């Protein structure tokens, strides 16, 4: 199993990570090592085995649909990089 440079660039874009072109070869080799290791799974017969996502096979509990939290907007926005009038600031999206 080998991940090509184009594939890696596509994955990096999906993950919103910027990978410099001069880092691509080394990173490709590292990821190939990891993918080579995890590929040993392909040889295992898992026919009819139900995937396990919660180790206790537990289900998400439901709660009453009522407000349980106070509004702490100013506290939460105190750690934001840029806010104005209670709103988070991002670069202009719509011209």
């Amino acid at each position, binding site marked *: 199993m080998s991940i090509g440079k184009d594939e890696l660039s596509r994955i990096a874009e999906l993950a919103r990570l910027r990978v410099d072109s001069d880092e691509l070869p080394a*990173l490709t080799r590292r990821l190939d*090592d990891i993918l080579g290791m*995890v590929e040993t*799974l392909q040889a295992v017969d898992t026919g009819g085995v139900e*995937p396990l996502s*919660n*180790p206790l096979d537990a289900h998400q509990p439901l709660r009453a649909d009522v407000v349980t939290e106070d509004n702490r907007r100013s506290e939460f926005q105190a*750690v934001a*990089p840029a806010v104005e009038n209670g709103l988070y600031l*991002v670069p202009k999206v719509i011209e």
Partner: protein
Amino acid sequence: MNDMTVAQLIQALRDREFSSVELTRRYLDRIAQRDGDLNSYISVAPEVALAEAEAADRLLTGDNPPALAGIPIAHKDIFCTRGLRTSCASRMLDNFVPPYDATVVERLRHAGCVTLGKTNMDEFAMGSSSESSYYGVCRNPWDNRRVPGGSSGGSAAAVAADLAAAATGTDTGGSIRQPAALCGITGIKPTYGRVSRLGMIAFASSLDQGGPMARTAEDCAILLGAMAGHDARDSTSMDQPVPDYRAALSLSLQGLRIGLPREWFGEQLQPAVADRIHAALRELEALGATLVDIDLAHSELSIPAYYIIAPAEASTNLARYDGVRYGHRCDSPRDLHDLYTRSREEGFGDEVQRRILVGTYALSSGYYDAFYKKAQQARRLIRQDFLDAFSQVDIIAGPTTPGPAFRLGEKTDDPVAMYLEDIYTLGVNLAGLPALSMPAGQVGGLPVGLQLVGPHFGEAQLLATAHQLQLATDWHLSRPPAPTATGDAA
């Protein structure tokens, strides 16, 4: 007050041998003297600690002080502490001061603990050596040229060097047990859902679990009793009664059936470590336990299954770091896309980026069935092996790691070699089981860890087994050598 366990400190504080303020000052002094070399703390919080110690001293003069009143501990820097920077050892959260406490922090504070500071770790808990921290490598107090293990390496090093009475840790694939083994202390990863994950910064949500790290199993029992229990604010927290772990320590080992997985004693295991583990097992036999060989036939699938599932969950969890609501934001973003990609590229270190990429790949269209679904199927096979084993035995025992602490830099250039360090610990997380590591002697002057694994919610039996073994042996009493004048512990 030097070198005392939590149990001894609780008694001494109640007997007024010294105050919590005196005890806290003593730890702060030791941190100032010793931690320049070890780098086990990312942040030390003297003002918070002394204020909490003063409050604890007032409680200690009252009739019913809380269980851990005045005990100075450290929190892994993955647990949110209100008003105290919580970095997860990442540049991404270098400026993050949480507006709330993790449930674990809240419960331990309620129990009277004093917060000395926040300990060093691998960035976002992804690692087995504590070398990937944005704040520099953490060193092993037994030999400062070696790693303390990871990812809770700072917590393990701080407890081993007596820079905290105990510490919190988290364990996604061995991150409590492996550093506990490499630093010669005791640490327990509870059953998945036993301890609340609220305010514990997420790495892989179906695997992450917090737990205590301390000098003895008795101390772990006391701390776990304060940390465990249902939390309605964590939807994966299990609503199960919390037994009195300390009272259960006196359980006899007579007739206890201990399973030894053949797969854990193969060629990966260094022979000198195997000797130490067998010596510890003979002690357990002398205490009345019976040893039974068992099979965990799918255990070799643990590493590949884990290194798909954990990165997949990490890639989704870490999608939240977008440079908008909190955390690192790049300078002068050109547009929204540039804001996202540059903030993340600057904020995350190499291993975190690698895992995000692997996880994104495994979850991406066309690969999902081959990787993620396959890994989750393997996960069920791995868990079933453990469940079958527990129909024959009460607990499972073996090594925590294949060898003792390795050298700084030895595995940083080879991620796959680093992943193999977790060969005996990963399966436990995939199956959601409780497991502890405790000292079992040394190899070449470095500690070796014995791992005990129990059935779901079987923490009391694990802690009792470890406690009985610690009453009969003195491995847990060994201390790292005092550093020389140059700070070179070797």
